[in-house]
């Protein structure tokens, strides 16, 4: 439990960070999604957001990009509220394949978002693509933008085949190398393992931040490590 408390203490927001959330709470009607959530993220850092379905991961990501407002607390991106920061801060956000409009052709949608030509599927209507291909299309379009400062991906591995999963991992690592900050939400721990500097566990409507070094100081974090920590934190309440 000592480790958990230490991790909580580190979750206080830092100064000068790219992303800064302080004491954020959010409900939908009477349903509390999360309360008193704080975190910060600097350029080049990657945060893995872990939690069960319905834990509020999507809600949290949409608050970070200004699509939803917190009921209480502050969200700051480059020191500004997200809605204001979006005009100057290059953010790539992808909510999953269901957010790709099915009525368009793949190439049309990609061109609308400034993505260069797609090979193979450009002329195909999006509705006729498989779920995994739509997911890869959305990721490819969003991750191809130059000079992205922050990448936010909601369940990015959902529906991807092994080749596409490998491609995504490589793309994220390339972005990390270029100094891009990233938040990756997933309930599939093995996909996140070894890819992040920080892991945030959504447990009982709260967020508990743990660094990769807290989990495994002398080796890469594995999926099993994350499962162990998730179970431990959940048991600790």
């Amino acid at each position: 439990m000592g480790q958990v408390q230490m991790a909580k203490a580190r979750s206080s927001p830092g100064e000068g960070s790219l992303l800064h959330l302080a004491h954020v709470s959010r409900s939908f009607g009477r349903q509390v999604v999360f309360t008193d959530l704080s975190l910060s993220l600097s350029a080049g850092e990657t945060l893995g957001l872990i939690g069960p379905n319905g834990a509020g991961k999507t809600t949290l990501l949409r608050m970070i990009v200004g699509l939803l407002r917190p009921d209480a607390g502050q969200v700051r991106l480059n020191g500004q509220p997200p809605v204001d920061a979006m005009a100057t801060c290059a953010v790539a956000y992808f909510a999953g394949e269901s957010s790709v409009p099915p009525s368009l052709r793949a190439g049309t949608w990609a061109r609308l978002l400034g993505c260069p030509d797609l090979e193979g599927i450009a002329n195909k209507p999006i509705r006729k693509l498989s779920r995994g291909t739509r997911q890869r299309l959305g990721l490819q379009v969003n991750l191809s933008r130059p000079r992205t400062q922050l990448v936010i991906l909601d369940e990015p591995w959902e529906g991807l085949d092994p080749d596409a999963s490998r491609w995504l991992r490589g793309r994220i690592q390339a972005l990390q190398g270029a100094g891009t900050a990233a938040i990756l939400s997933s309930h599939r721990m093995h996909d996140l393992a070894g890819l992040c500097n920080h892991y945030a566990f959504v447990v009982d409507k709260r967020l508990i931040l743990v660094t990769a070094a807290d989990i495994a100081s002398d080796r890469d974090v594995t999926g099993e490590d994350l499962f162990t920590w998730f179970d431990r934190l959940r048991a600790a309440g």
Partner: protein
Amino acid sequence: MKAARISPLRYCWYIVGRSPVFMALYAAAIIYGCTSEWLSAGSSDAALAMIIVGQMLSSSTGFVSQASRGYFDPLLVAGHSRLSVGLSLFVVSALPGWVAWVCVGLAEVALQRTLDVPAFRPAGLVALLLVSCVPWSATLRSPRLTGGLVWLGLGILGVLTGKVFGLLAMAQMSPAEIRGNLWGAFLNGLALPTVMPFVKWPVEILILFTLVSLLTLAAGLAYIRFRQIPLSQEF
């Protein structure tokens, strides 16, 4: 600046504006209007009524169903304000009908050799504004076409129950005669907007229709500006 890379008008046009069915309907209305006008000057009223009906349906594009799937996320995350997204959505929803209206109007002007034609008279322009704004705003929370279909249904119900026959008679009245039953005339106009361009409305009713249109549009834009819409997979 990243925001400059995605045009909200262009994006909204591709997401909600393009409908082959309505494109075909408006093309037919333009051809019909121009041909009627060419065969007999001043006989394109049916084409204008057709555009009014088309506009009631085609401007009913909806918003929440697309927004809750995340279709507008790329625009909002690119730094465009919700207001500019709302305005773009309105413009692309109304644009096809406006273009068809102007085309038929220009044919009327060319063949009647006057600017005083139904399409460009205040009553015609106000009718077009009304059927662009009201169904658009009324449909924001509902599935596509809802606002237009409900409005058309109420109009047909009014005709079938004999409650709006007054408007057909009003087409033959002077503004002074209509002024005698201002509110009745206003409600009749709302019920049957297809007849609106051909009635000699008193100016106060035209102002009222314009106010209703603009207030409805403002309410729709405010809804888009302030309403928080979670993704459908959220709670």
